[in-house]
């Protein structure tokens, strides 16, 4: 019985790593000439770095049993705003700040809408901002991409370190290090600081948080601000990688972010989930897409498979929970 519980905890934490290892082995076995090549792995990282940041932000929101549908739009607005600023000659250190700043502002709007207007569910507020922010994005660009960025602005999204070990363009992308730093920072924040624990407490039982003297509304505003910040940062990365501000960027990517968080084992009902799990969820989605691409499976199948993986991941979680309860 104890063993059963320990096993369940072990699987909760590390089972997903095993899934990733198995996926990598299978891909290496099916495409030994392509998959394990450093160029391919670099590509996977670069293509999914923005998603990873979005998922980290989404994770914080989902821990409170909330949802933020606006992150794709916020990412696009951040991206085009910084591209426009860059085009209009704003110095690059300011341009870099514009992305995250726009994210923070949008997040604050979401958080205040939820708590001050007391809209009944974050789905509604962030559905509203999904449209509004995307509309603003089209408005300020007339729907056309803004291309050409200063090299300093592109740096985080584009730079590659070969460390003298790899032959360019292979190497370790700067975006990988940014994601790692963000993940470590978020892990520390969520597990070691009072505010992080209050976020989990609100997800577990908002009433308990309230009677413990936690200002639940204020914490929720912080939560959406954090999520917005990561969306803005994702916009900066994507702008760097694509060398443009693209008003159509990130349409539907909020669903990928939610999928990554859920595949990573966070509970949709709040209070549960880890940063490691979220990153694993992103890696699984990235590997799935890459694996199907290099095996020439159509993009349509990718959607079907990702959908099935979500269902399977949550079903496994249901099974695991049942096993844990049956002592």
């Amino acid at each position, binding site marked *: 019985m104890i063993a059963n519980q320990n096993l369940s905890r072990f699987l909760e934490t590390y089972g997903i790593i095993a899934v990733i290892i198995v996926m990598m082995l299978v891909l290496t076995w099916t495409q030994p000439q392509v998959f394990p090549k450093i160029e391919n792995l670099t590509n996977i990282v670069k293509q999914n770095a923005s998603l990873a940041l979005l998922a980290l932000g989404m994770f914080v929101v989902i821990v409170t049993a909330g949802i933020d549908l606006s992150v794709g739009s916020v990412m696009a607005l951040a991206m085009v705003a910084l591209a426009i600023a860059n085009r209009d000659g704003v110095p690059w250190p300011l341009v870099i700040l514009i992305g995250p700043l726009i994210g923070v502002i949008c997040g604050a709007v979401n958080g205040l809408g939820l708590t001050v207007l007391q809209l009944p569910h974050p789905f509604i507020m962030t559905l509203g901002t999904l449209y509004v922010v995307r509309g603003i994005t089209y408005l300020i660009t007339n729907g056309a991409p803004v291309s050409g960025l200063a090299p300093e602005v592109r740096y985080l999204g584009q730079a590659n370190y070969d460390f003298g070990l790899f032959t360019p363009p292979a190497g370790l992308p700067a975006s990988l290090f940014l994601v790692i730093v963000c993940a470590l920072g978020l892990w520390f924040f969520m597990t070691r*600081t009072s505010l992080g*624990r209050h976020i989990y*407490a609100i997800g577990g039982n908002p009433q*308990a948080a*309230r009677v*413990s*003297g*936690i200002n639940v509304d204020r914490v929720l505003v912080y939560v959406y601000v954090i999520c917005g910040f990561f969306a803005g940062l994702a916009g900066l990365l994507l702008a760097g990688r694509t060398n443009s501000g693209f008003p159509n960027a990130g349409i539907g990517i909020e669903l990928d972010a939610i999928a990554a968080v859920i595949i990573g084992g966070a509970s949709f009902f709040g209070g*549960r989930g880890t940063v490691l799990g979220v990153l694993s969820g992103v890696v699984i989605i990235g590997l799935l897409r890459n694996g199907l691409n290099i095996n020439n499976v159509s993009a349509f199948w990718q959607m079907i498979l990702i959908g099935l993986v979500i269902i399977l991941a949550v079903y496994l979680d249901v099974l695991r929970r049942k096993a844990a309860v049956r002592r």
Partner: protein
Amino acid sequence: MAEQSAALLKAEGVYKYFGAITALRDVNFHVASGEVLGVVGDNGAGKSTLMKILSGLYAPSEGTLIFDGRPVHFGSPRDARNMGIEMVYQDFALAGNLPIYENIYLGREPGRRLGGLTIIDRRLARKMAAEHLDRLKIHVKSVDQPVEELSGGQRQAVAIARATAFDAKVVIMDEPTAALAIKEVGKVLDLIKSLKHHGVAVIIISHRMDDIFYACDRVMALYQGTNFAESPLAATTRNEVIGWIMGTKGHTDSLAHDKVH
């Protein structure tokens, strides 16, 4: 009355409306340091509502609270907790996903302050929690156990541990024994007595006459949101108190106490 002049926490003329419902009507209340007050009343009499007002969760619609002789306003439970008023809620109000020790220190985590943030000293929190539970003679497998894995009685114990972890001056317990097995009931009642000996004002809501007559110094009855009757324990009987709960008064002399002021 002596205890009235020494009242630590008082409420005067409290009304509470929930929309069209009047949950409390002109309720007066007082409790002194080192006193154990039993609050009785039928379901829906307004006991929990009154206690939530005293603990800062609800603001009274009308009326004043007086703590230590001064009128106070509680904007939230945090304000009440800062003054040393703690409450054990009827539904415990614990976060099931968090371990025992985190529930005990939720909102007041020990650690290093950094701006508005506390970097939690988890080792210290665990140690303090384990020691505190020991003091209360509460036994758990580990303070790392998530609360959702605990039995009703254990959850009750954790809720009590949270309310007593910092030197509380007033501890309010809303039906502290309702979820407990007989053996655990005794522990809680003894804990109440030991709080009393430490000079804490304790308020317990209970439907069990055994609890009231074992632990309390005084008992007050609410009936349909109003003060109905009140008496030092020594001057009343179980049957009389049961009568108050039903809304009937006997013809005993001790009922002269039912006017608070």
